[in-house]
């Protein structure tokens, strides 16, 4: 029950951020991105990423809410439209693991552009796809 309530709260908070950030179009990575990731096809998790461009760096957070994870490094190689993200996050055992994701930005001219790629989280590897809201 508590878990359901927590999930509902996270969804509501995430939706609020999504509504606020949906007005931003300038930098390709700016905005709210939603999608899923996981180590294989049967183990998937939803993810929400909010990013902002201040003219020099991309900043933001993963899964906004009480357990949000702040992005440490995010870059976009505009020559190849490759996105790179790094941060540290606690695993279920509360051990901090390094997270690295690399993906290709597609459908760039659309509000609903996508990033598709792979990630490593500690020793775990997986893939992801996120779509800009």
């Amino acid at each position: 029950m508590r878990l359901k309530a927590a999930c509902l709260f996270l969804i509501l908070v995430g939706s609020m951020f999504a509504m606020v950030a949906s007005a931003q179009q300038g930098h390709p990575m700016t905005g709210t991105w939603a999608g899923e990731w996981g180590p294989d096809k049967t183990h998937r998790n939803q993810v929400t990423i909010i990013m902002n461009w201040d003219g020099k760096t991309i900043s933001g957070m993963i899964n906004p809410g009480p357990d949000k994870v702040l992005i440490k490094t995010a870059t976009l190689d505009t020559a190849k439209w490759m996105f790179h993200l790094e941060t540290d996050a606690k695993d279920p055992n509360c051990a901090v693991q390094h997270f690295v994701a690399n993906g290709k930005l597609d459908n760039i001219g659309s509000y609903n552009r996508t990033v598709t790629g792979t990630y490593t989280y500690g020793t775990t590897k997986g893939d992801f796809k996120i779509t800009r809201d």
Partner: protein
Amino acid sequence: MRIRQSWTLSAFAMTAVLVPGLSMLILGQGTPAGPAAAPGVPPLPAARGAAPAGGGGRGGRGGGAAAAPAAPAAPAPRFPDGTLRLGALPGLTGTWNGGGGGNADVPYLPWARAISNYRRVNEFEPHTRCKPSGGPRQFLTPYGVEIVDLPELKRVMIMDIGGPHTFRTIYMDGRPHPKDLQPSFYGHSIGTWDKDTLVVDTIGFNEKFWIDRGQAPHTEKLHLIEKFTRTDMNNMTYELTVEDPGAYTATWSRSSAMTFRAGTELFEYVCQDNNFAPELLVGSEVDKVDRSSQIVP
């Protein structure tokens, strides 16, 4: 019939918007524009002085009759206090066209240059999807804009004709920009007169539009300074300074000309959001649609 005519105009507008865009794509960059070179603007009739030909026909499309011989332009009109008028004289009509120009020397940040290049190949401009477009893009429609002086309200209004048929307000009452602006398509504009030049300072833009036809991206940090100087009845210089540290390494400027079309005025222009297939609509010139039925797409 009115609807058909409207969509014929819409189709013409789309063509007028897209073809010059393609030309710019092929040619690489736009060219510094006088009125004749302004992208998206159909050939202008010759200047007709202050008096509107035919009393300003409804619709104000400026076509049909052959252009009259050019006459020397009258001086720029003024209010009794000496302030320049940017709009038409009382009882008359007129619209402004032009305001284009190339973006050859824009100091892009790398991401912005990449986006600009991408847009040149992948045209997906919000304006052609009926979104309002602020800054200089407001002037780059086939039918131009109408500028309305409202000194009693201390405002100047710039009314769109093409696109979403919207307007922009320039506050002339000395107010500052609000501190908690909600980003919008036209931003918040305040204006002051510097002798015979209207200087307009605008911030508070959202990022949902292109600021011009040159595919230049921007961010919410965009700050524009526009200078409007009406040099005579039919001509105005438009100077633009763009500041956006989110997209450019430095401020950049350009200047272009706008021409007054006496006798033209706003008309109803319907642009439907999410209209992805205007070529299928009644009134289009496409022959591929089967119109044998009374019910057509």
